[in-house]
């Protein structure tokens, strides 16, 4: 996967549009899901996903092969998503604008109500985690990235990732128990 990704990035740097299309196909689903769960807004997640690929296109020639493509892609996504959150907070301060509507997701009709309830509760609880804890948890549990990779993406040490994940799981567990007790 890594070698294949590296070849794609090198081809993109050489102006190969087909390689870019392949990289988009390979990453857009994972990136969109991470951004959707992190930003909790479909429109913002789509915009940022598009922006991530634009940056990749622009910066492919400067990609340093000593790093992993996957880490690089998620680092760009995380930085852009943080900017989006900062922008939103500023907008809230000035009362400029209301964030986009929540999104409905496709679910298995067999256990629709149960799943919807779990989704809602969990999504709410995830939203209450600090941004860096939420990002670390999503990258680890949903995208199965290593602590080393998460550290590179978040710009923190491996030990900090361990601490972030422990606190995220502790807090999430507490929030879900609190919700269940209602």
């Amino acid at each position, binding site marked *: 996967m890594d070698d294949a990704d590296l070849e794609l990035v090198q081809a993109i740097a050489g102006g190969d*549009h087909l390689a*870019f*299309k392949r990289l*988009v196909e390979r990453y*857009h*689903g994972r990136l*969109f*899901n991470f951004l*959707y*769960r992190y930003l909790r807004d*479909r429109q913002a*997640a*789509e*915009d*940022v*996903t*598009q*922006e991530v*690929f*634009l*940056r990749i*296109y*622009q*910066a492919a020639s*400067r990609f*340093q092969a000593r790093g992993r493509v996957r880490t690089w892609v998620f680092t*760009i996504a995380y*930085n852009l998503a943080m900017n989006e959150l900062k*922008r939103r907070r*500023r*907008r809230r301060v*000035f009362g*400029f*604008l209301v964030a986009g509507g929540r*999104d409905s*997701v*496709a*679910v298995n009709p067999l256990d629709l109500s149960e*799943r919807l309830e*779990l*989704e809602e509760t*969990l*999504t709410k609880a*995830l939203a209450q985690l600090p941004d*860096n804890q939420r990002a670390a*948890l*999503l990258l680890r*549990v*949903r995208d199965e990235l*290593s*602590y080393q990779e998460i550290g590179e993406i978040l*710009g*923190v040490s491996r030990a900090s990732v*361990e601490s972030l*994940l*422990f606190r995220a*799981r502790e807090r*999430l*567990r507490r929030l*879900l128990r609190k919700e269940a007790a209602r």
Partner: protein
Amino acid sequence: MRCHEVKVRLSAYLDRELDSVLERLLRDHLDGCVSCREDLASFQALDAKVQALTHVRMDAEFAEGLTVKVCKDFFGADRSLLGRTGLFGRLTSTVEVLFDLLEAAGSPRTRTLDEFADFPPLSMGYVYCRLLGLCRGD
């Protein structure tokens, strides 16, 4: 190892991110400690719930056109900042850019992306203006 030492490492144990010595110590402790085993089980259950969150699909049309959109944006045919258009969007963007520029050094956690490392600092103002479509005659 004592319970309080084990509990703070359970998350890393679950992720198989401990070194082999520590992992063995934790495993030994878990063999004989119900409370820590329960904690581990609750973390596992929590992870399973997060994993089970629906895989959200990007709008099919948007996904299909993503490559085209990015290429179009890259070559500057129709560049509006994150799809925002109209006077209100521009005004919002301008104020945001102003705040970005006024923000002192930013958060210590904020890093410069490698892909911007070779940009002269003052050129960022120009880049912002390009993004907002404020540059004329180029």
